[in-house]
């Protein structure tokens, strides 16, 4: 099949076939990063702009490295939260950037739907690098790639996602991604962070970490956003960690070959104990490696058109 999209806004829009194509492409590109000269000329002359309205280490670097390995030129614009004070709207910022003729705009924004807002207005493609609480599609794609490498398949797996589901774009994208590929997703966390409406997304909801990880092939821990404590989502870190933090003793409940994932950055000792994060079941660093490969694939499929023929 051919990949025809102008924009990558969310997993929601993608078919299982498109997801397979992105993963297969990522697989074939992964080897480039192992060479001594980690660069191919595929996207020479293309310009990729990253526009980040929220702090990010992993995702922005990962996109930038991916672009450089494909020889695209990258420009990074990190917009401080205060720049709205200057009065430029998101639409104006984007139109100004577009006037410089980039080929692809990668955006992270605190407002859900901000990439959709831009995609409707811009001729160049838009890739969502995380919008509010909505989606983080390249994170889900790299998670799928990591699971496929570990398990050899994406269907029929039991995936447990633990933590603050309500405020997690990673959770939303992964719920969509894993259910689309034929796996079963269970989410767990305190009810303050588990909106009941999630059930309509085809997931099982439980309030117990133990129940969620029982028989799991994949356990994905979400980062606890510490500021939520002040908003009464949970009383204390101590209680959260004791109730929903993943420790070694939980792994015995899961499948023997369970893998442990985390989108980072980790709060060590809060949602995940150091023994688990650094232990043999952890694929957290593979996720980061695969992030580059998946983003190379996304860049190639979106703006590599000229070279395909």
């Amino acid at each position, binding site marked *: 099949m051919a990949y025809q999209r102008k924009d990558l806004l969310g997993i*929601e829009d993608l078919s299982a076939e498109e997801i397979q194509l992105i993963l297969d492409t990522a697989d074939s590109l992964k080897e480039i990063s192992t060479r001594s000269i980690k660069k191919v000329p595929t996207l020479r002359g293309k310009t990729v702009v990253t526009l980040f309205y929220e702090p990010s280490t992993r995702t922005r670097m990962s996109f930038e490295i991916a672009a450089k390995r494909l020889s695209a030129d990258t420009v990074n614009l990190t917009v401080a939260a205060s720049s709205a004070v200057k009065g430029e*709207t*998101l*639409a104006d910022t984007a139109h100004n950037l577009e006037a410089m003729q980039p080929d692809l705009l990668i955006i992270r*924004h*605190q*407002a*859900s*739907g*901000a990439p*959709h*807002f831009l995609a409707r207005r811009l001729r160049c493609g838009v890739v969502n690098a995380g*919008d*509010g*609480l*909505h*989606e983080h599609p390249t994170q889900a794609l790299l998670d799928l790639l990591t699971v496929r490498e570990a398990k050899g398949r994406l269907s029929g797996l039991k995936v447990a996602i633990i933590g603050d589901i*309500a405020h997690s*774009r990673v959770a*939303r994208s992964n719920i969509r991604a894993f259910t689309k590929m034929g796996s079963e997703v269970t989410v767990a966390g305190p009810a303050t962070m588990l*909106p009941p*409406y*999630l059930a*309509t*997304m085809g997931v099982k909801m439980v309030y117990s970490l133990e129940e969620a990880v029982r028989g799991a092939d994949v356990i994905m821990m979400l980062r606890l956003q510490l500021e939520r404590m002040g908003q009464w989502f949970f009383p204390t870190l101590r209680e959260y960690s004791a109730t929903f933090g993943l420790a070694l003793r939980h792994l015995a409940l899961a499948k023997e070959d369970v893998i442990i994932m985390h989108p980072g950055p980790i709060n060590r000792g809060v949602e995940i104990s150091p023994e688990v994060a650094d232990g043999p079941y952890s694929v957290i660093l593979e996720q980061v490696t695969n992030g580059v490969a998946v983003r190379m694939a996304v860049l190639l499929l979106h703006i590599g058109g000229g070279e395909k023929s």
Partner: protein
Amino acid sequence: MSLLITGGLVVDPSQNLTAARDVLIAEGKIIALEPPGRLLPEGRQIIAAQGLVVTCGLIDMHVHLREPGEEYKETIASGTRAAAQGGFTAVAAMPNTKPVNDNATTTRFILERAKLTASARVYPVAAVTVGSQGQALAEYADLKGAGAVALSDDGRPVMNALLMRRALEYARTFDLPIISHAEDLHLRADGVMHEGVVSVCLGLKGIPAAAEEVMVSREVALAQLTGARLHIAHVSTAGSVEIIRRAKAAGIPVTAETAPHYFSLTDEAVEGYNTNAKVNPPLRTATDVAAIKAGLADGTLDAIASDHAPHSSLEKDLEFAAAAFGLIGLETSLGLSLKLVHDGHLTLSQLIAKMSTNPARILGVEGGTLTPGAPADLTIIDLQREWQVEVNSFASKSRNCPFQGWRLKGQAVYTILGGKVVWQA
């Protein structure tokens, strides 16, 4: 010169009248209603209304005219032209202007501007508290003396229950109704749309139905405590309808309105991050829509008001969370509401009661009737006329309408204010 409207079906809920009548108007008043042919046409201007409905001028008891202070969104002139074009002869203007209408000077300014520029009657609603800040009572005696007909901190509900109690009691002194924008601000928090399946899928923070319902419950309890006239604005949830239904059954002095968007749209209208569907209270679910229709049919909801809330592209052409709440409604309200009649939810007389007679009664203003001696405010409606919503034909200065392109059936073809035709389709 007198005006004779001949051959129409006259619908006047105030007299429980739905019958063929000719209507004679002179000197700005209704002179007579007579069976067809009895009133002689000689020397009179004639409007032939065969096949049309002739009814009391519609009254929209909840609009935002934005003047003074935000004239780039709407003015009293443009907002009342939109009213006339939509079939309304009177509007109640909410006080969240800049400055807030919390003092007699601002009330008088609004009425002065209306006198000079308006195409419809303008009834100022003044603030419950100074600056709508929820800290101190505004001067109700002074405000009523200047012409305010009701009190509301619309959009900034009075969160302190003791202050609300005092406001209701003090308003009772002057027989002013308080219009409550019933919303618990703590429970709403930073929500931007209805909390439900759609908000979870879109990753937008939700406003639960309970944010409205807990406040409707509080207001009902306070109305019972104080015996003051309480009116609940823009009811949007099934739970609120039920609370109000029970309150009325218990004899508590509460009235309520809903808006056309709450029986025409659900939260799915937000999909695609459509900021024209961002409104407060938010668009709810199909269950709520059904309950709103039932509440209109059984009389729990007394009025339909548009909550016409003009915003420019500066407030709406933004990412969803940053966009302002509100949509315009004066020019679609009648067409959307007539669907309730075409679909058999309401009789025409019930609809006119909710869009004219009841608002006049709740606000204690003239109008809402065609009895001889009443002001000659009339709306002539073609029930069968099909039309397409086109925002660029609107008289409103703003374009924030989620109904663009909708095909509607039924439209005001004449709007008559004080005996003068102010709009003709």
